[in-house]
């Protein structure tokens, strides 16, 4: 295993932990597993990441790896975390944002739609970049975002108007 130092670990946590938290929340509708997902992604980065061409390339790699980790959590049913009482007290998940209005409407969408919407409208990725992160075709991203927006218009109704972007 390639060794890493504290500075590298701190860089990763400070730069990407919140990004992974938001992605985990979008994927899993909870913040409970976010720390574990961070651990998985950061260990993979520190020991097996490829050389990156740019900060954008690195960030996309982090997201792609976190997406796969979220999918693994979705498939997991038996794993439990056991810890001493004191440690359990420290391991509380970050509080979830108040879930109402637009956020609630997005989170209520199927994963197929809410994840591309998050990557586009919050992280600012293009359809082509989202296709690369999620390992799907750009045309598929286009149709999922379009369908997600239509569902949102229907659920949010008049308060947010009918115009799309």
């Amino acid at each position, binding site marked *: 295993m390639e060794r890493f130092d504290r500075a590298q670990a701190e860089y990763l946590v400070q730069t990407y932990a919140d990004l992974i938290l938001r992605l985990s929340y979008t994927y899993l509708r909870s913040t409970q597993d976010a720390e574990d997902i961070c651990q998985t992604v950061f260990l993979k980065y520190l020991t097996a990441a490829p050389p990156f061409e740019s900060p954008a390339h690195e960030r996309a790699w982090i997201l792609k790896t976190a997406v796969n980790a979220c999918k693994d959590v979705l498939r997991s049913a038996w*794993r439990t975390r056991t810890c001493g009482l004191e440690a359990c007290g420290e391991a509380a998940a970050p509080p979830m944002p108040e879930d109402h209005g*637009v*956020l609630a409407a997005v989170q209520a969408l199927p994963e197929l739609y809410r994840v591309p919407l998050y990557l586009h409208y919050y992280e600012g990725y293009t359809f082509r970049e989202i296709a690369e992160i999620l390992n799907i075709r750009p045309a598929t991203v286009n149709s999922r975002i379009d369908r997600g927006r239509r569902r949102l218009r229907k659920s949010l109704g008049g308060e947010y108007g009918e115009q799309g972007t």
Partner: protein
Amino acid sequence: MVNKAHKEYQDMLHTLHFSEEQKARMVERLMRTQEAGQTTPPRTRQVRRVALAAAAAAAVLAAGAGAAYVGLASDAFASVFGTAHTEIIDKIGYPVGVSASDAGVTITADAIVADRSNLSVIFTLTRADGQPWEQASYRFAEDDLSRAMAWKAGSGNHGASWFVDDDPQDAEMQYIQQMTVSNGVPKGKITATFRDLQIWDEAYRKSTTVVDGTWKMTFDLQCADSSVELLERPLTVQTDGGMARIQKVTVSPLGFQVAGVYEQLNAQTQAALQEMRDAPGGRMPDRNGYDQLTSLPIVLHLKDGSTIDLRKATGYSLQDTASDHPAFQIGDSFVDGIIPLADMDYMTVCGVQLPIRAE
């Protein structure tokens, strides 16, 4: 998304962040993991090139006419096992690439991953018309791979099967068969036959045929056993059923197995088994003696501190239940899919700790 909604969405997600204390804890956890020497997959690019050549050769050997999938087992199983353990999957799995077509649908056996007792096979169903599959709950009216496996192995098996449609816009979906075979996964050729693809109604009471077809394909079973035996000598333990001698405890990245025989049954279990023998046909008595014989506390402890309660394993087989010394075998595939041996610390069986040494 209109501007107002867009801004509100962004503002609400901005509030989601780790505290500095949580971030500091994450750094400490990373450093502790390094000190514990937890291994992670090494750079795999070179290994992948070698594996691709080997996989292609294996596919040519195994597939015969009609081969369609020639790739890595890890790529085929990405929708099932994720992408975190590709090296392990490619070591214990292999591509198959055998297809059958009928009624405008081609079913291809893409890949197999197996060990001594556990097996997963992934198939791709492709529509010839290029249209996407309807989003629904599917089943086959007949899927006899499990029966074929039981016939070939000379024993029962248990497991699960399910459909996955990762990209609802394309004309493909996957079907996964996962099973644990009591007598072990046999070697040699096996034929899988599927008939009539159906969709369940919402209540899962009635299914309707949507593709009237029969698909039959034959492929090779060649398991590379990655199991490790945890027992150096038999172990005597007290269980809900009585005093048992555990003779075998094995674990692999795919699953586990615990086997043994009862030296002495307790009175409660003897009574429950007798009740089962005396019960009128078709009626299970209130007390299930089989549960008492096979409900052993088995827990897998991983190096990261998490645990997996294997007592919930659904699979077991029993022999000689009419005697005073029934034999048992408890085992299952891991629901998580793949757990590297290097991530495992120890297993406890009825409270006895058994270290796991990755080979």
